[in-house]
């Protein structure tokens, strides 16, 4: 009876495991170096966005890149902007980051834009690959295949293997295993996908009905999947899969060797120990089954495999007819189950009280590795070890990350709202400082401005005059004030003499002419020097005027900056505050819905585990009673045998002593000894009960 049921269990386990394993294994994709790496940085802000992206600060990275891209598009001559070197890369990077930030719709839209745009085919191919990746992640496999079919010609080298691997996984999901096998065969030896290709190939072969080939491929992987924790886990997973597969085929000895290959400290060790025990039990070697099961029984009391082992151990003892030990083990199992049922009940209460969501919102969630597991250490927190399987599921992970993203956005917005308050305070302070002093400053500035303008006009006139002198030589225009005065006096004297000829004499006329000649001669002789000097002076004046104009411009800028520091923000801040408040309301609602889903799933999981344990408890109680009965029966049987043996010995002793004691050859008594007589009277019944008690 049991072996068949055990096989059934193993079969169920296997089919369930296979169904889990048939979800193709994905190599943990590193950050795509093509999209988020640059050898020569041409734009600091692109580098800053990369700095955020590498730390998974998606909001900062995406918003920075978005801003850069928008600003770049608004430029008149975008090719002059150093960002143009990174522009295409930035567009892909935004798509990638949106994908990492689980904004599949936006990422998909970005890729579709690239596909519809007028770009080179290799870029379109890369976009198609990325779009397919998005559909794959969303479990829309037909759409993923459709996107892959858009790829024409050459695929960029750095994504070629990934594209092929993705295509193979899509085929597997669509049940086209033979096509997947062909692609995966081609990918063998691809270093970046080492192990993952072989695993998927093995599964594809098994699914395609080529069992032996599949086992062979998986066997190779199970021997050596490579170094590193991920590869070791893959190796264990492969061996576990093979062990279960062979146990299903009743090849128990072969199955055992695969279970034995699984590391004892790895994440699959519990399942492997359990499987190793079942292999031995199926083969009827219960004593050997006890070895892995006993080991498993000592492990973490929250694991389903450990619970199963707690029942399997006494079961094996029972099969070995050691019913008393079986009873003791059933008793231990009952105690352990009782404790765990209490833990589960407390955990459910804790989740209902909101402790799980509270812990998920803590800062540690982003700082402590495996926080969802570690949070169990908080006082009053639920026992998250029971949720490990649930938490490993894609849906739960998505819910969890969405919840944490929403919480981060909520906190970020809350900080911005506080910042907006601070901005308004700054603006008010600036207004109260500038508004009283600016009118006075403006008046003073206007006066200075008028004087500056006047001086500038004077300078322009002087410059024009000097320029004119270069073409039209007029030395008198460069005369000094005393020379001009002397020239004017001489002109005046000549006019007086013309008006009163009586006063004039030849000598006087000559003297005036001589003086005028001397003056003209000096002006004419010094004209070039004076002109040069005038030029130099004008240049010096230009320097002073440049300083004046700079001061003027600085003042204008400062004046504008003063106004801009508090004017024109009111509407923008009001609009942003409105946007933030609306976003907060939406985030709050979405968090409540997402949190409720998380709680509900966790409670359902814990409820199921509790129901399972309660069911185990009932069965363990029955089995315990059964073991006691069998132990008692066995004890009675042994007691009877002992007494029969004692009687036989007595008879033999009597026979030996008979020749001396009974020389006449009197026949031996043939009736039963009194303890073997059926009880007839009350006294007899009592003595029988007493014997039972003994």
């Amino acid at each position, binding site marked *: 009876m049991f072996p068949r049921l055990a096989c059934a269990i193993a079969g169920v386990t296997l089919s369930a495991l296979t169904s889990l394993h048939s979800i193709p294994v994905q190599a943990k994709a590193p950050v795509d170096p093509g999209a988020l790496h640059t050898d020569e940085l041409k734009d600091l802000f692109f580098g800053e966005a990369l700095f955020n992206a*590498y730390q998974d600060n998606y909001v*900062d990275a995406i918003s*920075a890149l978005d801003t850069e891209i928008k600003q770049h598009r608004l430029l008149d001559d975008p090719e002059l902007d150093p960002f143009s070197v990174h522009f295409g890369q930035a567009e892909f990077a935004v798509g990638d980051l949106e994908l990492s*930030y*689980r904004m599949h719709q936006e990422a998909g839209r970005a890729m579709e834009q690239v596909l519809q745009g007028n770009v080179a085919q290799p870029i379109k191919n890369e976009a198609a690959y990325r779009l397919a990746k998005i559909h794959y992640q969303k479990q829309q496999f037909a759409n993923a295949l459709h996107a892959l079919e858009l790829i024409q010609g050459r695929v960029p080298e750095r994504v070629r293997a990934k594209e092929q691997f993705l295509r193979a996984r899509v085929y597997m999901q669509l049940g086209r295993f033979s096509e997947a096998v062909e692609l995966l065969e081609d990918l063998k030896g691809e270093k970046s996908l080492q192990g993952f290709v072989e695993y998927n190939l093995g599964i594809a072969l098994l699914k395609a009905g080529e069992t032996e080939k599949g086992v062979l491929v998986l066997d190779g992987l199970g021997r050596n999947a490579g170094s590193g924790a991920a590869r070791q886990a893959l190796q264990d997973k492969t061996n576990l899969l093979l062990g279960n597969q062979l146990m299903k085929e009743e090849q128990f000895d072969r199955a055992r060797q695969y279970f034995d290959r699984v590391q004892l400290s790895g994440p699959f060790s519990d399942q492997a120990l359990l499987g190793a025990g079942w292999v031995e039990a199926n083969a009827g070697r219960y004593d050997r089954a006890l070895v892995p099961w006993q080991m498993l029984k000592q492990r973490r009391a929250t694991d389903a495999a450990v619970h199963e082992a707690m029942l399997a151990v006494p079961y094996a003892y029972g099969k070995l007819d050691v019913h008393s030990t079986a009873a003791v083990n059933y008793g231990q199992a009952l105690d352990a189950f009782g404790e765990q049922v209490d833990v589960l009940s407390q955990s459910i209460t804790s989740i209902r009280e909101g402790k799980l969501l509270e812990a998920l919102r803590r800062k540690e969630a982003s700082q402590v590795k495996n926080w969802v597991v570690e949070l169990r250490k908080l006082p009053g927190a639920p026992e998250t070890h029971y949720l490990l399987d*649930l938490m490993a599921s894609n849906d739960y992970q998505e819910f969890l990350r969405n919840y944490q993203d929403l919480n981060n956005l909520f906190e970020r917005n809350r900080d911005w709202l506080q910042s907006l308050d601070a901005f308004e305070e700054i603006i008010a302070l600036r207004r109260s400082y500038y508004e009283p002093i600016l009118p006075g400053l403006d008046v003073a500035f206007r006066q200075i401005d008028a004087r500056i303008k006047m001086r500038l006009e004077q300078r322009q006139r002087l410059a024009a005059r000097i320029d004119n002198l270069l073409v039209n030589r007029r030395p008198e225009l460069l005369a000094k004030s005393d020379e001009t005065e002397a020239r004017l006096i001489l002109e005046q004297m000549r006019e007086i003499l013309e008006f009163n000829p009586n006063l004039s004499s030849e000598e006087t006329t000559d003297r005036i002419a001589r003086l005028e000649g001397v003056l003209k001669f000096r002006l004419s002789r010094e004209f070039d020097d004076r002109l040069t000097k005038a030029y130099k002076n004008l240049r010096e004046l230009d320097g002073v005027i440049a300083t004046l104009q700079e001061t003027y411009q600085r003042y204008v800028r400062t004046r504008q900056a003063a106004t801009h520091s508090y004017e024109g923000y009111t509407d923008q801040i009001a609009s942003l505050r409105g946007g933030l408040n609306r976003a907060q309301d939406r985030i709050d609602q979405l968090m409540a819905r997402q949190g409720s889903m998380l709680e509900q799933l966790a409670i359902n999981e814990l409820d199921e585990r509790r129901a*399972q344990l309660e*069911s185990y408890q009932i069965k363990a109680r029955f089995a315990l009673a*059964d073991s006691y009965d069998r132990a008692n029966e066995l004890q009675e049987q042994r007691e009877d045998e002992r007494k029969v043996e004692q009687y036989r010995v007595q008879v033999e002793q009597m026979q030996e002593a008979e020749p001396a004691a009974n020389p006449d050859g009197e026949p031996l008594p043939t009736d039963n000894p009194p303890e073997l007589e059926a009880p007839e009277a009350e006294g007899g019944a009592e003595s029988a009960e007493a014997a039972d008690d003994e």
Partner: protein
Amino acid sequence: MCRILITLTTAVLMSLSVLANAQNVSREEIRGLDEQIQDVKKDVISLTSELNRLEEKLLFPSNTQAAFFISLAGSASGEEFSLESVEVKLGNQVVAHHLYTYREIEALQQGGVQRIHTANVQTGAHPLVVSYHGKSKSGKEYSGTASFSVEKAVGPKFVEIQIAGTQSAINFKDW
């Protein structure tokens, strides 16, 4: 015993149907919620961009803005050099002192650029002194200090401080 085994079978089936839990919440509901979450993320990112611009305009107007960025020089990138701390003095005042986390170090090694400080300064020359401490992969400690004169003009000023760790050198680049 038979019943025990039947129960065991049921229990195993139950334990393996963890994913079926998610089915308690309908697929449509999950998709609808997911799409709404994506929408709100998009809106918040857009708001964040606008808020960043507002903050910069308000707190660091372009005529006084001077921003300082840390990067690792080509030879220091990769995993050869781990930056531990950087101190920036502007005008003889310590304006930034940063201790690096593991993720920040990785981000710098991969080619990211960290904005370490943004200041408001007047036009003219401002002395900048940068010092750093770090370690090579082998555990050898490196440190260095270098000075630079920041010439602030009318427009915003961006200075890249490039640390060539294992050469104990710091290069400055005006952007």
